[in-house]
């Protein structure tokens, strides 16, 4: 090869080298990168038909710094509990009561005579002035209390840690418990992959318990016998998806269920007592992506309150 051709070859190669370096450098800039070929896409399931949405958001109450975990509505006041507190807030935002708790309150239930707060492993009864009336602890160390409900004088306590529902008298005496298991095929017991395990008593005095692992709502007798259930497993709007949904439920005065889901698609929906989707309260777009399930409660006027943990506020939904 002649010197000249070698020289040209060298120049060409140097050109290639410089081009490569520049290409590589620019190719990695944030505005120049290609899309992710492995994108996980659930957008089509997130879209909700607007005609299904029968509710509108009317009020927001930002909670600021406090970390709330549980909420209940009673006579127009909002009761919240969370990291070391129990607070009562009037609907106009004025705090009525603030009680310090030794631990984080997880759930609460307000009745005429008292306020019941569930800590992880303890149940405390307060009067409406914030004085402790009574408190007791369930027997097992793995207890993880997630929900409370009352029927007549019996307190139902959802213990997600042991997959059971406990029954107590209001003075703290243990009456019994059930795990939802039975000989029949339907009685597979509660499947609770993560600490979401909710129960309610509706206006017909029926106890409904969520079986999140089965995407089911189950109706039990006082003794713990399965009386009826419905389940709906689907990623579409009609059903529940993921490992443990619905994570939170509440009941309207007509017995319909308000359900809240966690995870990739946070949404609040209303199902009839028999499990038919009636309407949608809030579509996933209203919530943080991959968020926690909001705690939902209903007041006497069937106004729905949602405690949004990700946005740290109480959101109020009213019928359009």
């Amino acid at each position, binding site marked *: *090869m002649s*010197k000249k051709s*070698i*020289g040209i*070859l*060298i120049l060409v*190669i*140097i050109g*290639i*080298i410089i081009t*490569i*370096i520049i*290409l*590589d*450098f620019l190719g990695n*800039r*944030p*505005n120049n*990168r290609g*899309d*992710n070929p492995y994108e996980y896409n659930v957008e089509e399931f997130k879209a909700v038909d607007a005609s299904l949405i029968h509710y509108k958001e009317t009020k927001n109450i930002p909670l600021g710094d406090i970390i709330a975990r549980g909420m209940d509505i009673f006579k127009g006041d909002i009761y919240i509990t969370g990291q070391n507190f129990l607070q009562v807030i009037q609907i106009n935002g004025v705090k009525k009561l603030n009680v310090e708790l030794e631990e984080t309150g997880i759930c609460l239930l307000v009745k005429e005579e008292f306020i019941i707060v569930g800590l992880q492993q303890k149940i405390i009864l307060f009067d409406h002035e914030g004085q402790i009336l009574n408190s007791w602890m369930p027997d097992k160390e*793995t207890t*993880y209390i997630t929900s409370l409900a009352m029927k007549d004088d019996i307190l139902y306590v959802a213990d*997600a*840690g*042991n997959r059971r529902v406990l029954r107590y008298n209001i003075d703290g005496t243990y009456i019994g418990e059930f795990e939802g298991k039975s000989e029949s095929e339907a009685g597979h017991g509660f*499947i*609770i*992959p*993560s*600490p979401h395990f909710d129960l309610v008593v509706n206006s017909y005095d029926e106890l409904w318990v969520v079986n999140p692992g089965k995407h089911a709502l189950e109706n039990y007798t006082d003794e713990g016998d399965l009386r009826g259930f419905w389940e709906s497993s689907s990623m579409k709007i009609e059903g529940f998806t993921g490992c443990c949904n619905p994570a939170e439920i509440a009941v309207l005065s007509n017995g319909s269920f308000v359900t809240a889901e966690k995870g990739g698609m946070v949404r609040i929906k209303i199902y009839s007592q028999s499990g038919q989707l009636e309407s949608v309260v809030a579509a996933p777009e209203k919530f943080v*992506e991959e968020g926690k399930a909001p705690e939902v409660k209903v007041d006497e006027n069937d106004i729905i309150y949602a405690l949004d943990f990700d946005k740290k506020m109480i959101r109020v939904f009213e019928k359009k």
Partner: protein
Amino acid sequence: MKNSLSKIFLFLIFTFLFLGVYGQNRFPKPEFDSGYEQPSPTKPEPRSNAMEILDVFVLLAALSLSSWLAIKKRSRQGILWLSIFSIIYFGFYREGCVCSVGAIQNVALAFFDSGYKISLTILAFFLLPLIFALFFGRSFCAGVCPLGAIQDLLVINPISVPSWIRKTLDFVPYLYLGFAVLFAATGTDFIICRYDPFIGIFRMNAPYIMIILGIAFLLLGMFFARPYCRAFCPYGVLLNWMSKVSKWHMTITPDECIKCKLCEPSCPFDAIEIPIDEKERTEDTVRKNVRRFSIYAILIPLWMLAGGFAISKAHVFLSRANPDVFLAELMITNPELIDDTENLDIQTFLESGKTMEQLVEEASVIRMKFKKGGWFLGAFLGLVIGVMVMNQFKMRKQDIYEPHKGNCFSCARCMDFCPVEKKI
């Protein structure tokens, strides 16, 4: 790279915080009736510390052997075999990492980032070749550095380039070194590692664009011997300094030079200094050169000042290499990108919960570092240019054939060409 590299300990704290929040996920598992036992995830161990120490010892042994072969044994054959060993061990077995060249960046980062801990192995890889160069010349380049060795083996038909090209190319490594240190010190990028042309070949696995880069360099090396070492290698700059003042540098001839000229074409790297034609050293040129020398010597501070000013002026531009700065600016200039769901960097940032103010604050801090660093870098480059220009008029007497102590790679090729035998 980003800043995360340095924040090992902070990161541990973060983990802890995270687990505090999501601790609820650790939930009692199902009780299995079928006697199922939960497996635990396997954790293949990283390469052990002992093996790292072994690497240091192999480096030490290879350096000693290379020095001995070049200076005592004077054996090109030996160095050739050593370089094959180095390619196999440091290249293909160790996959080009850990390497002395890249260690510059770790050292730079350790100097400027208090949170960054440099491992002793890397420090040893950085220091040992320099110490050897101080005593024995660039024996590291001769047959220990896998990057050099692979190019050295592919020197097929080296052409001799005019000295002005060489002298100009000599400046590029300084530039590369300067920027590598600036980028490493600001926690922006490790450009030496990122654009290491041969690492893809050693790993036999790389983005294909980088493999093409490696092949391009090798092809280039067939005609312009050791292109990376001579025109890019930032570590070569440090070795060059050390080697210039080395105590026992290798010589072409075992004894007295008889100026037979035979060795002249032997060096593919044009590193042999040939005797100066005394006829050219007329009194007139000498006087002229002395004058120029002194003028350019006086100009050096000016160079430094100009360089510092210019590069620190360019800090805005340079700092865009930093991903944080780039992202911050991108979002300020193109706020509409927030709605671009395909832009992962921006979407991830928005989801991270970090505020824009924090990002801008961090970016400004990095930018300021670039401004300050720009002064140092510019002054350094100015100094280098100034000294290089000045040195063109250095009137050193040269009456025998000897290797240029800075540029010589101690590859021992020239020795075979020397007809002189060692006197007993």
